[in-house]
């Protein structure tokens, strides 16, 4: 079996894997990082979004072997070592931007990527930037509010 050399949440990983292994399966089953969800498994919903070399990707639509030499970051790595939540996580909590929570890891990883490219997005830009993420509970308004707040645009 081929060997994958990569970094996951700052740690170097070397693992034998089957070529058919998807990145999301490697993270969840291989690394035990079950924060990344599988919603549709057909590239539609964005529940599986992680960062590869700093950009958001759908990990159900990438082979683990395509991440050779890459830096992967998952939702588990956002909070500080002392458990302090990332500002985007705090904003999601404050604004009730989740109901069942299934889409939340992908929404948050997508929002963090969006804010690093555009630190002060307009509501329209937030909606455009989250087009690849579907919330079955349809809580979009609060998600947009949370991202606005995380970018410091709601005051208070």
């Amino acid at each position: 079996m081929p060997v994958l050399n990569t970094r996951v949440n700052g740690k170097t990983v070397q693992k034998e894997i089957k070529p058919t292994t998807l990145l999301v399966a490697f993270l969840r089953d291989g690394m035990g990082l079950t924060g990344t969800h599988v919603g549709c498994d057909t590239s539609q919903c964005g529940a599986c979004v992680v960062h590869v070399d700093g950009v958001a990707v759908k990990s159900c639509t990438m082979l683990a072997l395509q991440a050779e030499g890459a830096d992967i970051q998952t939702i588990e790595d956002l909070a500080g070592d002392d458990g302090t939540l990332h500002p985007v996580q705090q904003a999601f909590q404050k604004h009730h931007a989740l109901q069942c929570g299934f889409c939340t890891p992908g929404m948050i990883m997508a929002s963090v990527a969006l804010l690093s490219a555009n630190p002060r997005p307009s509501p329209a830009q937030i909606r455009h930037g989250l087009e690849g993420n579907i919330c079955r509970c349809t809580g979009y308004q609060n998600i947009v509010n949370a991202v606005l707040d995380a970018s410091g645009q709601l005051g208070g």
Partner: protein
Amino acid sequence: MYPFLYQRPTSLDDALKSFRSADDACYLAGGQTLLPVMKQRLAMPSDVIDLASIGELRGFTVAQDRLSIGAMTSHAVVAQAAEIKSCIPGLSHLAGTIGDPHVRNRGTLGGSIANNDPAADYPAALVALDAVIHTDRREIAAADFFKELFETALEGDELVVRVEFPLPQKSAYIKFPNPASRYAMVGVFAAVVSGAARLAATGARSCVFRLHQMEQALDKNFDAAALAGHSLSAEGLTVDMHASAEYRAHLIGVLARRAVDAANGRGSGS
């Protein structure tokens, strides 16, 4: 997915050698089409040849009169690079309308045109801009490259290396996206290349096509007003659950006028 052998060559030559020595090989770019197809077991290649480590396929260059973009360049790079935005604004705008940000981070120019989905966006730009596709063995004009539904002029093992675009005087793309898939229900790219008006439509037939009559009207006066009274027959246009042929014919007229407006600096689209 059916099992396969994964290969990651570092040169064009090695990629071609790997392809030829395998039973039934397939190139892998960003995987945004190929992996879903393999997951549905609609494809079962013996070997998957990942193009990610081949330097010749990456990056873009702007020369005096042309822009050259490597096959493995992502839609996100085309959408964001300031040089591309300034020399072909319509192309950069088009790349920013493909799918969603995550798809744009992985999907590539080469993969999109090699796949030739009838609702894909890039084919409209390549045909309207009179681009030339450079492969490992020859140059193919965009007009000859896109053949039919999911069919191109590429031979089995032929690799798209880069696409060269002559710099247009004007360019814009307007897309009416399917609200669920975000692929083009219809998209029209309008450009002025070497002084001539060129319009191409995607999403409306099995393959991209030019709007010759409208081009003639625009040659005299590249203004949306010149298109007044021009309509396209619905005959031969795609009918599916999303839209009738008549609706698509109507959209082409509306989007063509908006694309010309946008190319003239009025409204978004460039």
